[in-house]
């Protein structure tokens, strides 16, 4: 135990540094990408195995810093992340059980770090360059943080009263407490980033014109997100009729933003939410908290295809929310100006849309009616393009077109986050913000200043025990139903305590450990295969090489005269360490392989 070293070179002893090897071979980079699926799946590239390992060592602060290297808002993402990592977690692969609660552990690092925790930042000398960022949402904040680290002067212009964007105005407090958000935003922007709130960019009265920014700054980054709710496409008479203004009609995003700006929102007895994303679910749960008796989410396809986590659906259902599938609203029924119900058409499932979502095809003549008092329309958000009037080029989905270098058609003007990608997830925004910050830096400095390599460090022994593999996924404790409904702000998920966190962290396979057999020393005795818990050690005659130069499938054989090597299939390996202990000639080695960056 205790072998894991801090991920940054700074804290390592000279001896440890000598014992590391930096590789930019595509086979090694490919290895990490294949073998550390959580990190690969994370849009920000969070080094998951390392931060979980640090939790096992009870180094919560260090774990938090490991997170911060990739994502400046660990406490926030530890609560509301869409968790693309967990979907890929090796522990969740068929036969291995349930994925590790990576997200909950991220929150653990944030919750359990010392009160006086020291933040580590890798600061570059000032460059004298000035960058303006429009929008203090996750993409803008992430970019601002990184750019200021790289030595640039950064100013953020934010329209709202306070920074955070969707985090503050779009996500209910019962999912994301505002004190957590405030602290992390503050930490991110402490390095001399100027925050100008209430500052709207535009050509109107009281607005700051773009031209002025272009004059004052060396580069501009637009990260204004997707803050416009998409309209509900209805049919017949309703096709052209304006819905805003009808009593009982709400747009999900506006509904949430207004509520978080402090407006008092009310809903009727029966609430119908139309939409299938996090916003729809949030609206439904908010509606339940506002006293609605019957909250139904109407979706066009089926529950199977909603892009939210199972836990989220389950918690919503526990709060009484019901989901009904295969229906599309085509009209409303009103009495005067007041909504009384929704006309739906029955759907059948069609083919697949881009992004892995299903199409719903309405069935002619299958219209039906369901009464309701409030409809919350949460079918998506849109960017408001070119509100600056600069004539930016758009792509065919209507988003701003950016090049490989992250720049728009306008020189020196960059764009990041939902504003470019359309409505996506917070972690995608954070990841994209970082990525674009790097591009801006390269453009400003005229060269790339860092490159990606694999750091390979020998590890003396397996850091796990086989027994860890049988620990079940620790469930997130949640608030009592009565507590939740009391003021509607009470955080539902209570966080893992140290004991639960430790149990959960032990479950992590530490996929960044690479187990290798030294073919020259191997005597082919198969003692390792004997103890293997899975079909993870193989008699190999060859290996496929993928297009990107990384390894593909191992080619196995049962014929002795074909066996060129006994090899550990790291894709099957669950890092239990049994083989390492069993080898009679100690020809199995372990090394930690992690993606990192070095100065060029």
């Amino acid at each position, binding site marked *: 135990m205790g072998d894991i070293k801090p991920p940054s070179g700074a804290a390592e002893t000279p001896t440890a540094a000598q014992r590391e090897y930096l590789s930019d071979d595509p086979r090694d980079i490919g290895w990490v990408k294949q073998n550390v699926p959580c990190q690969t799946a994370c849009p920000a590239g969070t080094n998951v195995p390392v931060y979980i390992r640090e939790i096992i060592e009870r180094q919560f602060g260090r774990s938090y810093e490991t997170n911060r290297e990739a994502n400046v808002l660990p406490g926030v993402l530890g609560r509301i992340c869409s968790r693309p990592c967990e979907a890929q977690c090796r522990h969740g692969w068929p036969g291995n059980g349930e994925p590790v609660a990576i997200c909950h552990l991220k929150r653990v690092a944030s919750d359990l770090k010392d009160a006086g925790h020291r933040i580590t930042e890798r600061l570059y000398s000032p460059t004298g360059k000035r960058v303006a960022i429009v929008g203090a949402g996750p993409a803008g904040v992430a970019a601002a943080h990184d750019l200021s680290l790289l030595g640039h002067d950064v100013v953020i212009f934010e329209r709202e009263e306070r920074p955070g964007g969707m985090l503050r105005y779009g996500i209910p407090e019962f999912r994301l407490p505002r004190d957590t958000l405030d602290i992390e935003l503050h930490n991110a922007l402490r390095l001399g980033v100027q925050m100008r709130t209430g500052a709207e960019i535009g050509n109107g009265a009281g607005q700051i014109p773009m031209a002025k920014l272009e004059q004052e700054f060396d580069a501009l980054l637009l990260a204004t997100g997707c803050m416009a709710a998409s309209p509900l496409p209805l049919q017949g008479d309703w096709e052209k009729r304006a819905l805003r203004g009808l009593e009982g009609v709400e747009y999900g995003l506006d509904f949430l933003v207004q509520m978080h700006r402090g407006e008092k929102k009310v809903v009727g007895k029966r609430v119908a939410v139309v939409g299938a994303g996090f916003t729809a679910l949030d609206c439904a749960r908010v509606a339940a908290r506002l006293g609605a008796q019957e909250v139904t989410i109407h979706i066009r396809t089926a529950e199977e295809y909603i892009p939210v986590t199972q836990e989220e659906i389950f918690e919503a*259902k526990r709060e009484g929310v019901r989901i009904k599938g295969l229906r599309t609203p085509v009209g409303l029924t009103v009495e005067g100006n007041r909504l009384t119900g929704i006309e739906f058409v029955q759907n059948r499932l069609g083919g697949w849309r881009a992004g892995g979502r299903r199409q719903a095809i309405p069935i002619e003549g299958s219209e039906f009616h369901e009464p309701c008092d409030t409809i919350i329309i949460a079918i998506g958000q849109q960017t408001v393009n070119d509100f600056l009037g600069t004539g930016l080029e758009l792509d065919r989905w209507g988003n701003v077109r950016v090049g490989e270098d992250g720049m728009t058609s306008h020189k020196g003007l960059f764009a990041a986050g939902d504003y470019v990608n359309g409505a996506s997830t917070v972690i995608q925004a954070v990841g994209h913000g970082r990525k674009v910050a790097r591009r801006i830096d390269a453009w400003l400095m005229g060269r790339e200043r860092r490159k990606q390599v694999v750091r390979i460090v020998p590890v003396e022994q397996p850091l796990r025990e086989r027994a860890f593999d049988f620990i079940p996924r620790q469930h997130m404790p949640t608030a009592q139903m009565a507590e939740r409904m009391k003021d509607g702000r009470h955080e539902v998920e209570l966080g893992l305590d140290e004991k639960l966190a430790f149990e959960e962290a032990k479950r992590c396979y530490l996929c960044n450990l690479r187990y290798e057999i030294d073919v020259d020393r191997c005597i082919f005795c198969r003692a390792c295969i004997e103890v293997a818990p899975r079909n993870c050690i193989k008699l190999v005659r060859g290996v496929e090489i993928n297009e990107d130069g990384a390894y593909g499938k191992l080619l196995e054989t049962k014929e002795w005269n074909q066996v060129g090597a006994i090899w550990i299939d790291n894709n099957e390996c669950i890092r239990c360490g049994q083989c390492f202990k069993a080898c009679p000639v100690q020809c199995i080695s372990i090394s930690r392989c992690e993606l990192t960056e070095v100065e060029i």
Partner: protein
Amino acid sequence: MATAKNARHHVVIGSGVAGSQAAETLREREPDARVTILTLSSLLFYNRYDLPKVFRGHRDWREFLAYPAEYYKDHRIEVRRCSRVAGVDGSRRAIALEHKEEIRFDTLLVASGGRGYIPEELTEYRPLMHPFSSYTEAVTAAGVVPERGHVIMLGGDMIGLDLARTLVDTRHRVTLVAGQQTFWPHEVSEDERPGLIAALEKMGVEVVEAADAGGIASIEKGARGLSARRVLFRDGTELYGDAVMPFFGLSPSVEFMLGSGVDIERGLLVNPALRTTSEGIYAAGDVCQIWSDADKRYRFFYGWKNVRAMGDLAARNIAGGAEPWVPAQDEKLHIGADGKIQSPFWEYE
């Protein structure tokens, strides 16, 4: 097992009424084909509607079997018991079993039925409830209810109410906590409901309306000296009983079909010929939602006669037929001359 070399392999997932009927029909229609049933059960096919018999003292599993073991040998139907399907690959026509065995099929009939639904707000109390959807669950439940014991029945779907009839008949006390799912799958209008509830009370079932008590707040182990279970309501009232049995209707068992390429809403979506959206894969019984041209929507059909007819129809269509689904039984709930509830789903053969 001797089968012709190029004979087709028909695999049926589920050994309930639909699956067993389908296997029988397939064997009749295609004498040379290989027919395999995959089931989670450790028992050969038995009729679920026989299960209340356990409260009459019938506990020998052999009594429940619909056919003896020889039937399967004689009819060359392979039954793979205790076999959990992990996934289906519709394009490769392969079934992955959880123990990593792969089975190839030419046609697949999914007849995995439904399992007892438990509302999400009650899921944390699952360990304190006694479900009743399989032989083993039935025997376990019967084992915890003493003679003249008191059963608290939640929900009260028609499977539960059928059991309630037996329980009352065997001098047990039954308290029904009624709610939205009472009388499931019958669709009961608000006008009909009071009469039906009254009929239930007349049959000897005590009824508590969950909504009147603010809904169930929790289910707990009974305190010392009291019955084994306590159901606590939001309004503070409570109920004590020997067992709490949930009857909230069925939710289709479809998890293993996720990613198979077959369309799913709640159940597997099938056309009137019971074929799913994937060629070569059919579904029958409580697991499928059938497109109804009349209603212009996908809907479930319930009752063992319907389920058996679905199994039969799916098999005939697999064997080359193209007949559309016609419901085999009336679905109307009514009150008989004796003042008791009569459901077509209770008419057993």
